[in-house]
C-alpha cells in the first residue's frame, strides 16, 4: 500500500514538473499579449468568432413554399374530378386562383343541391318510421285490450 501511495506521489510530481515545463516555455511577453488582447474590442480580438447563424434560411424558405403550395393547390383536392371534368380541365390549363375559386363555388352549389335532396329523402324515411311506430302502437294496444 505504501509503495502504491509513494508511486502515486512520484507520479504527481512528474505531472507537476510537466505543468511547470509548459508554463515555463512561454516567453516573457505572454502576459503583455494577454493584457492587450483582452482590451481589444471583441470583433477584432477573435477573428473566428461565431456569427449569427443563417441555417434557418433554407427551412423558412421551404416552409414558405409549402404554405404557398397548400394555398394554391388545396382547393383542387375538393373538386370532384369524375363528374366535373370540364371545370377541372379548365383549372388545370389556366392555373388561375380565380378560376379555382369559381369552380369551388360551383362545387359548393352542387353540394348544397345534394343536401336538399338528402333532406327530402330523410323526411320520407322519418315519415315511414312514424308510420311504423303508429302501427306498432296499435298492435300493442290490441295486445293490451286482449289481456
Amino acid at each position, binding site marked *: 500500500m505504501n509503495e502504491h501511495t509513494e508511486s*502515486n506521489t512520484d507520479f504527481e510530481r512528474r*505531472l507537476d514538473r510537466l505543468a511547470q515545463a*509548459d508554463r515555463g516555455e512561454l516567453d516573457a511577453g*505572454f502576459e503583455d499579449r494577454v*493584457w492587450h488582447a483582452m482590451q481589444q474590442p471583441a470583433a477584432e*480580438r*477573435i477573428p473566428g468568432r461565431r456569427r449569427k447563424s443563417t441555417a434557418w434560411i433554407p427551412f423558412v424558405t421551404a416552409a414558405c413554399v409549402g404554405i404557398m403550395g397548400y394555398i394554391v393547390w388545396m382547393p383542387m383536392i375538393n373538386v370532384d374530378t369524375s363528374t366535373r371534368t370540364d371545370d377541372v380541365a379548365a383549372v388545370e390549363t389556366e392555373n388561375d386562383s380565380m378560376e379555382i375559386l369559381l369552380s369551388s363555388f360551383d362545387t359548393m352549389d352542387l353540394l348544397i343541391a345534394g343536401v336538399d335532396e338528402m333532406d327530402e329523402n330523410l323526411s320520407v324515411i322519418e315519415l315511414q318510421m312514424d308510420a311504423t311506430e303508429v302501427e306498432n302502437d296499435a298492435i300493442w294496444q290490441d295486445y293490451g285490450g286482449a289481456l
Partner: protein
Amino acid sequence: MNEDITGRGIDAQRRADEPGAAGDLADLVAEAAAGDGQAWSELIERYARRVYALAKSRLRDPDQAEEVSQAVFASVFQHVSTGRYTERGQFEPWLFRIAMNRIRDHVRRSSRGPRMVGEFAAPVASAPASPLHAEDVNELRRAIESLSDADQEIIGLRHQAGMEFKAIAEVLNEPVGTLLARHHRALHKLRDLLGAKKSAGVSHE
C-alpha cells in the same frame, strides 16, 4: 502592461496558494472591477500561465493554447469590468470554468477538421524542467492523451492548472470524493500505460 509582471506566473500561483490568499483575491477582483490596471496585471500574472498550461495539455498546440488563454481573459475582463460577475469567493473556479468551456469548444471544432492524433501526432517540443527529460515528457504526454476526456480533464485541472480538489469540484460540478477517486484511477492508468511501454521496450531490447 508593465514589464515587471512578465514571466512570473509560477511564483504568482505559489503566492495565490498561500493562506489568506482567498481574501486577497477577493480584494484584487474588486479592484479590477473598479478599473485598477495593476489589479488586472496581478490577476493575469497569477492565472494566465496556468490557463495556458491547461489549454496546452488538451489542445497540444502552443498557438491554440495561447489563443484560448487570451480569449478566456478577454471574457473575464468583459464580465468583471461590466459588473456581470459578482465576487463571492468563486473567482478561480469561475475563471477555470470559462477556460474549460473554451477548451472544449476548441477540441470540438478541431475534431471536425483533419488532424493527427495518438501515436502519429508530432511530439510538441518544450523546455522541460530538470530532471524531466524531453523523451519522458513526450512519453508522459502521449500517455495522458490516451486517457479518456474526463480523466484528462481532472489531470489537467489538478496539475496543469494547479487547482485544489475543492475548486475542481466547483468547476466540474461534481463531488470532491468522486474527483479524488477519478484522479486516483487516472494516475493508476497512467502508471500502467507507462509501465507497459517500458516493459515492452525492455522485451524488444
